[in-house]
């Protein structure tokens, strides 16, 4: 469904093109990093600390060195001068406490899984065998595993730092002039309005990309070549150059086929640095590929927040203030954008609503668990969860339909562009249209009727309907804004368009796709722009020797920022070609018009195709004076604003009140991601995103025991959903073109994940709300749901005596008696 009609359907843009990428991938002609073998290549295996917190007393490597096939065994001390350091690129405050993160620990380990020594052998099996022979003597230290515990500073994750608190970051609408005073709004609501106070737990998640991380380093050429299963080859190159004493010009980083990332490969890892250090020292190509078990314990995790939320509203449900207090667990080290991820929520906790007063507070904390960083959505799912759960709570208090309460508070479509209470200007949107379409697809009214009937007859299987009208910020990011936030890099993107002599086109992009389908989507964009066949466009990426400039792929930025760079480079090609066309056609450049791949002379039938101009430029035999024989062009695009996609997601869950099992019955969503380049790719992104978000609500969670050992350390215990756990989805789109880029696109990579988690939990809570239940902690396992139901029925609630809403008591965690505390203490 199209709401605005100012985008005439172009030839390629909007077509459900099948992916170019697939040909290799469906036939096994893939090239993932672990599939790369170089002559004389050696293999690394890591010796890892079994303890979450310890000092290293001594390491004995003699037996390992003598093992068959072993070439070298090194400790952190052995490579201290060449191993570099894992950097944090976004210190959120200038006084952020940031522990030094050595790739191979030397004296102190702060989480279980940290590398303490590296074995290099002729085969992977020999390297792994020899790991067992390295004898490390540790002095165990007490561990601190829970972020709230850590804030007490009783046990320190890094004793030398003197505190576990890394930083405090605040956005206050009154202070920055974008809204009123939140505490005033809260006090007023306490006397004559509605005040809702809740604490939610965002459990720790494991990204779970299917390709384990792998790195191959070849030191034998003029440049050191690094292949890595990474989302960020350019950032990795920068980090290596900045910390390992290798000139950037002597480094080539390649992200070949990469098997998913979801933020989990937006990192520069100890394993990458250790492999580079060993390859340089030994002068031989080296490879390290992690096992899945290692991926679980050492890859960065996502989420892990405590959210304390206070919403003030009038008795009829108009929000008057919203206060957010987050405690974010960073794990043992501040990862590359670790501190910044929760802070991204600052602009998103206000959601799609007009909130007069707002305050966001975030305290980041160090613990003895693996580091936390971006995971699909990165800060925005946490925010969308918080606000969308609270909207349902508000609806519950007022006794209104959750969609009505949202509509009452949301930004109307005629109010865009709209500057929110957090200070962001939303480019465009139409919440009414997306919601109307979603209700229709979902049969909202019919399901509400069924829900009422089931309640009426006390059906043991109750029906719950969950709503999530989310928004997110995409297109990371305007460099100036990043600068003002103390981020260590820019947010621009780069592209080159090269017209080849035979009329085909090479497009070089600085983004680094790993499953998204950008090769197909960008080909469609360029085909339309230059008027060349889709098949004639080649998209090159992911190799710093081919695409030297780039900021890589994350944060739903690739199309919005990277696509715009491609458009601008293509437009420059057209401008250059126009001059040559005018010369060849003996016309004035002003009389040349370009359309459908052809330069024509106005008012005549004379013209030349872009391929003909390319050939003429290649020969250079007849070019205007002073014109270089090249049509190629570069563009670097720095966005001035983010884009703000949105959507209405509706979820029906059947909750068996006898067993606690919650089963998904129906899921319908209508997303507005701006202009759609390829609906097939958009759908694919939505489906995959939905399941990741649903999995957070229902199944996934990293659980640690009291020693800091990951209990859910394999696919047996960490339950990634399978096809049998999920259902088919009903998806559709509305289109409100973005005003921040010439294609009108908004970004879709994270939408499904951000939207679906609160929709699912809202549905389960909706099913149980008549029992007095207003929260289930994620993942909403049958056991937790069952306990909530048991707790509710044993509570003998006198509804008439009940407070309008439960209130916080100082220092108490989640005060919903139904909620259990998370495993990740």
């Amino acid at each position, binding site marked *: 469904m199209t709401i605005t009609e100012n985008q005439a359907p172009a030839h390629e843009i909007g077509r459900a093109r099948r992916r170019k990428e*697939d040909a290799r991938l469906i036939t*096994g002609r893939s090239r993932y990093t672990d599939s790369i073998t170089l002559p004389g290549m050696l293999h690394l295996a890591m010796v890892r600390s079994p303890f979450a917190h310890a000092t290293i007393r001594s390491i004995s490597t003699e037996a390992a060195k003598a093992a068959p096939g072993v070439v070298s065994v090194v400790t952190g001390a052995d490579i201290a001068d060449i191993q570099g350091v894992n950097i944090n690129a976004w210190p959120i405050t200038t006084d952020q406490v940031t522990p030094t993160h050595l790739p191979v620990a030397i004296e102190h380990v702060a989480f279980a899984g940290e590398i303490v020594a590296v074995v290099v052998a002729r085969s992977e099996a020999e390297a792994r065998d020899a790991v067992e022979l390295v004898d490390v003597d540790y002095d165990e230290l007490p561990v601190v595993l829970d972020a709230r515990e850590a804030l007490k500073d009783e046990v320190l994750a890094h004793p030398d730092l003197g505190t576990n608190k890394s930083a405090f970051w605040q956005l206050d609408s009154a202070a920055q002039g974008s809204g009123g005073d939140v505490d005033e709004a809260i006090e007023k609501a306490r006397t004559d309005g509605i005040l809702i106070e809740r604490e939610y737990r965002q459990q720790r998640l494991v990204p779970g990309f299917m390709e384990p991380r792998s790195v191959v380093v070849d030191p034998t050429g003029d440049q050191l070549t690094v292949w890595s299963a990474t989302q960020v080859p350019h950032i990795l190159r920068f980090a290596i150059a900045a910390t390992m004493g290798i000139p950037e010009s002597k480094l080539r980083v390649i992200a070949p086929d990469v098997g998913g990332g979801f933020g989990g490969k937006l990192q520069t890892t100890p394993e990458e640095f250790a492999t580079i250090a060993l390859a340089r020292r030994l002068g031989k190509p080296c490879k390290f590929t992690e096992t899945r078990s290692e991926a679980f314990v050492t890859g960065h995790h996502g989420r892990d927040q405590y959210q304390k939320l206070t919403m003030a509203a009038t008795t009829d449900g108009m929000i008057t203030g919203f206060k957010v207090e987050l405690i974010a667990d960073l794990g043992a080290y501040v990862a590359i954008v670790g501190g910044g991820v929760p802070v991204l929520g600052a602009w998103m906790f206000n959601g799609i609503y007009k909130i007069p007063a707002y305050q966001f507070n975030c305290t980041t904390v160090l613990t003895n668990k693996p580091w936390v960083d971006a995971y699909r959505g990165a800060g925005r799912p946490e925010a969308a969860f918080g606000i969308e759960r609270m909207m349902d709570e508000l609806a519950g208090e007022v006794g209104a339909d959750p969609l009505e309460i949202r509509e009452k508070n949301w930004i109307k479509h005629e109010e865009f562009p709209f500057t929110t209470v957090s200070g962001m200007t939303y480019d465009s949107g139409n919440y009414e249209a997306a919601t109307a379409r979603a209700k229709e697809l979902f049969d909202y009214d019919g399901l509400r009727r069924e829900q009422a009937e089931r309640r009426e007859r006390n059906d043991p299987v109750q029906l719950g309907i969950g709503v999530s009208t989310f928004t997110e910020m995409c297109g990371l990011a305007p460099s100036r804004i990043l600068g003002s936030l103390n981020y260590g890099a820019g947010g621009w993107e780069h592209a080159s368009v090269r017209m080849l002599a035979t009329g085909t086109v090479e497009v070089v992009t600085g983004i680094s796709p790993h499953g998204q389908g950008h090769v197909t989507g960008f080909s469609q964009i360029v085909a339309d722009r230059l008027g060349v066949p889709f098949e004639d466009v080649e998209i090159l990426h992911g190799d710093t020797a081919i695409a030297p400039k780039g900021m890589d792929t994350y944060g739903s930025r690739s199309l919005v920022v990277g696509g715009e760079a491609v458009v601008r480079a293509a437009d420059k090609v057209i401008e250059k070609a126009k001059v040559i066309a005018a010369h060849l056609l003996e016309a004035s450049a002003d009389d040349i018009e370009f359309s459908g791949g052809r330069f024509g002379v106005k008012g005549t039938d004379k013209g030349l195709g872009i391929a003909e101009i390319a050939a003429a430029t290649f020969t250079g035999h007849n070019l205007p004076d002073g014109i270089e024989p090249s049509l190629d062009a570069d563009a670097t695009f720095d966005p001035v604003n983010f884009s703000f996609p949105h959507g209405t997601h509706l979820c029906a869950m059947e909750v068996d009140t006898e067993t606690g099992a919650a089963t998904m019955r129906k899921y319908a969503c209508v997303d507005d991601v701006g202009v759609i380049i390829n609906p097939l790719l958009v759908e*694919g992104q939505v489906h995959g995103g939905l399941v990741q978000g649903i999995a957070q609500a229902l199944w996934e969670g990293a659980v640690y025991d009291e020693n800091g050992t990951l209990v859910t350390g394999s696919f047996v215990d960490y339950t990634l959903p399978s096809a049998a756990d999920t259902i088919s989805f009903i998806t559709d789109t509305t289109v409100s073109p973005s005003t921040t880029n010439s294609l009108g696109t908004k970004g879709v990579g994270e939408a499904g994940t951000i939207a679906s988690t609160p929709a699912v939990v809202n549905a389960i809570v909706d099913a149980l709300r008549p029992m007095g239940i207003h929260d289930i902690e994620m993942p909403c396992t049958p056991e937790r749901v069952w306990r909530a139901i048991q707790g509710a029925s044993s509570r003998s609630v006198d509804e008439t005596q009940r407070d309008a809403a439960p209130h916080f008591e100082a220092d108490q965690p989640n005060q919903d008696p139904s909620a259990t505390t998370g495993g990740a203490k």
Partner: protein
Amino acid sequence: MTRITVTVDGVKYTDDVEPRTLLVHYLRQNLGKTGTLVGCDTSNCGACTVHLDGHSVKSCNMLAVQADGHEVTTIEGLASDGQLHPMQLAFNDCHALQCGYCTPGMIMQACDLLKDNPDPSEQEIREGLEGNLCRCTGYHNIVRAVQEAAVTMREGGATTDSTAPAQAVTA
């Protein structure tokens, strides 16, 4: 070292392998059949799925020596006479892959599923693929692809929509 003879994708190989070598490592490291991938170390993800004498097995879950005297088909041997298998075409047509890491295993498993049950219901497809994890697609389009391939294979012919898959073959 143990001597084994295995036919892989139609070619007969005789090799000396260490008894502990997993079939998947033999395929990837000895034969260079890197189309078959490894996603876990607990036999849960299915990325390594191949056919052994026509039926799907997780090649990380058996030793190379156990394949001695048997016939293995990997994703690289699924197309025949330059023609992609209907399942490969359907995966492309239905956008049933993103990063492609689960894809070889998923396609091999899906083929096996249709061999046993040529006309499966959606639920039967979902259950038949339970041992293969995909983190990208949310399974929705994988299910569609298996349904589409089932129709094509029952009709015993080429896919109906030939535009894109044809490019896929030649690209």
